[in-house]
């Protein structure tokens, strides 16, 4: 009998070799206690959190917590059902209303995770015979949605407008076309030139889906994302987002002005065949989304944090994913996986948590230490972070 697991042998060997160097396993960290959006206890040590995507620091907001507790008392711990059967409570409608207001759009549909939102919407709207043209650096949930829908999948080089246009023009006459872009690409923290790309997509008769998971709440005058910031949100057919970053809980969504959008609730299988989010989760999400509508000061402070960290790390001599800070993600490029893991461990010992990202999640086979800032990081914490990077960088031989 062939062992179906033999296909994982190269990865098992890579992990074995890495752990044999004595480095702490970067993929089995446990947060023993979480003190605030920016501090947790890991391995008994107080640790600054700089890799949680908790951009707006809503996870411990008192109003958000109260709303969740109240919903637990009033509606119980879970819905035990699909949205189309017994799983739509008042709270699910309320969070969809909050999203419609937040984006000023006609329709909002909430999924149990952001991954499922991409999986469900993409696989349902682009089927056999349709063409999906997408950026090669798209998130795994986008790729999986493409695969599940059976559309013809045509990638183009990251943020390359000309390459996208050429591919759109080659699509056979009469075929359905969907262009998929992201506002912020989470590996390097760079943004897309959505204004120009969306124009090209529209000129070539394509519908446009933009994943704004890493920009919601933060980028754009109202925190609606990169498309809003570049003045083209009205040209986007479908915005995909998540509750697990700025909103501070879990869940995913799609908002749209498409007049027939509501039919999605009956034809989208990852929506129909999943239990809906627990009442406490949608209550916290709705409260958080409404507070994010008026979070201009927090957005300004988060930009300050992002600029300070970017400059501080660049001045120390680290190689960063972008020459200027474009989002709340600052990616520090490591020479290789082994030294990346050493640096990650040295930072953890200093009391700083960042994400270690490695291939195949990263572009061009890079190993990254990915930092995501929070609006609740104080200016002092950011300086502490820079100091810890300097010490860990010397210890790991990166600086």
């Amino acid at each position: 009998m062939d062992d179906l697991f033999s296909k994982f042998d190269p990865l098992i060997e890579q992990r074995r070799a890495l752990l044999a160097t004595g480095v702490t396993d970067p993929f089995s960290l446990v947060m023993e206690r979480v003190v605030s959006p920016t501090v947790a206890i890991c391995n008994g040590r107080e640790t600054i959190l700089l890799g949680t995507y908790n951009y707006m620091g809503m996870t411990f907001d008192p109003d958000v917590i109260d709303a969740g507790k109240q919903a637990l008392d009033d509606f119980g711990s879970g819905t035990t059902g699909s949205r189309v059967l017994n799983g739509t409570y008042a709270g699910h409608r309320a969070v969809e209303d909050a999203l419609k207001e937040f984006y000023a759009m006609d329709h909002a549909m909430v999924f149990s995770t952001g991954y499922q939102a991409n999986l469900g919407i993409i696989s349902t709207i682009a089927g056999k015979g349709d063409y999906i043209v997408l950026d090669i650096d798209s998130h795994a949930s986008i790729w999986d949605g493409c695969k599940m829908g059976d559309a013809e999948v045509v990638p183009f080089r990251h943020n390359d407008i000309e390459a996208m246009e050429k591919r759109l023009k080659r699509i056979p006459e009469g075929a359905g076309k969907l262009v998929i872009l992201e506002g912020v690409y989470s590996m390097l923290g760079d943004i897309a030139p959505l204004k120009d790309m969306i124009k090209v997509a529209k000129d070539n008769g394509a519908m446009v889906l933009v994943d704004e998971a890493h920009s919601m709440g933060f980028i754009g005058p109202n925190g609606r994302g990169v498309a809003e910031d570049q003045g083209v949100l009205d040209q986007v057919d479908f915005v995909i987002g998540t509750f697990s970053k700025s909103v501070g809980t879990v869940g995913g969504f799609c908002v749209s002005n498409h007049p027939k959008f509501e039919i999605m609730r009956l034809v989208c299988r990852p929506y129909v065949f999943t239990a809906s989010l627990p009442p406490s989760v949608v209550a916290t999400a709705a409260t958080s989304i409404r507070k994010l509508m008026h979070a201009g000061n927090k957005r300004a402070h988060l930009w300050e944090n992002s600029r300070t960290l970017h400059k501080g790390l660049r001045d120390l001599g680290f190689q960063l994913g972008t020459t200027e800070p474009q989002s709340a993600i600052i990616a520090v490029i490591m020479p290789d996986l082994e030294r990346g893991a050493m640096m990650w461990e040295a930072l953890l010992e200093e009391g700083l948590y960042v994400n270690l990202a490695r291939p195949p999640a990263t572009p061009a086979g890079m190993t990254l230490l990915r930092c995501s800032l929070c609006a609740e990081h104080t200016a002092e914490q950011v300086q502490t972070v820079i100091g810890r990077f300097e010490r860990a960088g010397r210890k790991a031989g990166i600086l």
Partner: protein
Amino acid sequence: MDRTATRERIDALIAPFNKKGVAITDASTFAGDLEFDSLTVMDFVAAIEDEFDIIISMNQQAEIETYGQLIDAVVKLQG
């Protein structure tokens, strides 16, 4: 364009990607013999698409394992 002419043009396109100078036959595999990683595949496919003004979707790429299969696919896609 016939197979021979198509092959000649693809031969010229693959040269810069064939970093190890592997002797390429119709039976050469991209993943095995040529050791192409996913980024190399993307750049090589883009070069062919631009040269012949065609689309080779990822769905079609999944069916192409050898150099000979690629030439056949490009001949077919040119119609």
